[in-house]
């Protein structure tokens, strides 16, 4: 075997391994920052916040990681609250969304969602008597 062959073999071997590892890391990181995970996390977190809330409270929630993970071309409101059905829906992509129910019978309204969520990454909830 010539010296040149050994070098080529090793380079191809290293490149193949790097490609393999990069695909693996891409998979892991794509799972970590997946909008689906943030949708579930925030809908449950907001539902629990509402369950613990009392009328008269104003609650601010930092949703920076969720806003960063949302689909770039998705420009709708990210959080919806249905006071009739006691549901919180968090939607960070066109096809998707996660909803979770709360039991506290209060009236929840979202204050300036678009401005706060997209510019300051903050969700402000106002709790009033249901």
């Amino acid at each position, binding site marked *: 075997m010539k010296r040149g062959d050994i070098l080529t*073999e*090793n380079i*191809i*071997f290293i490149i*193949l*391994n790097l490609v*393999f590892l990069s695909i*693996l890391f891409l*998979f*892991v990181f794509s*799972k*970590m920052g*997946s909008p689906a*995970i943030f949708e*579930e*996390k925030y809908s*449950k977190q907001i*539902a*629990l916040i509402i*369950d*613990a809330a009392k009328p008269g409270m104003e609650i601010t929630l930092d949703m920076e990681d969720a806003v960063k993970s949302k689909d770039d071309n998705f420009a709708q409101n990210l959080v919806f609250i249905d006071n009739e*059905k*006691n*549901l919180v829906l968090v939607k960070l992509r066109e096809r998707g969304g996660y*909803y*979770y*129910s709360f*039991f*506290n*019978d*209060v009236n929840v309204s979202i204050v300036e969602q678009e401005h706060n969520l997209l510019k300051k990454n903050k969700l402000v909830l106002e709790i009033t*008597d*249901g």
Partner: protein
Amino acid sequence: MDKIISIYWFTVLFLITGAIVYMVAIFYGEPFDVRDAESHLLNVQIADCFSRGGYLPQVIFDGENFLINRENLLDTCKLSFVTEDFSNWNEQGQYYLEVEILDFDTKSPFELPPPIRIGNFNLRELCNLGKRFPKCESQKIYVLDKNNFPYQINILSAVRKVEKNVI
């Protein structure tokens, strides 16, 4: 070219990759289980409803009679057991609540209202039996009526919602 096409090397690589992919998928595929927090919050809401500064509020006890009963507990304590219609959740009932008012000294419910039980009764028997069973929390609080007569209130809350909290 031995190394490049080495079956052994790539077998090991695929095995490691498979294991990592499996672990990541399991870790991130597992839903966040928030039922412990939910049953705790349900308990806290009931405790807050039955005790205002350590005293029974007027809406619960008017000085002579207990006004609270099975029919008005949810309204009085501002609770709603309506859930999303997911996996037949609304039909089954995802919550259970039990409130028992006892004489603090004798621990007897004599002349006191019967225990108030609301929601899916089956959840009580399955409390905390495992991951795929309802999560429950019980709590005892001590309150006084306006004549400073002491009561013990036992609260038990259970939350099912298995499908959205456990694989």
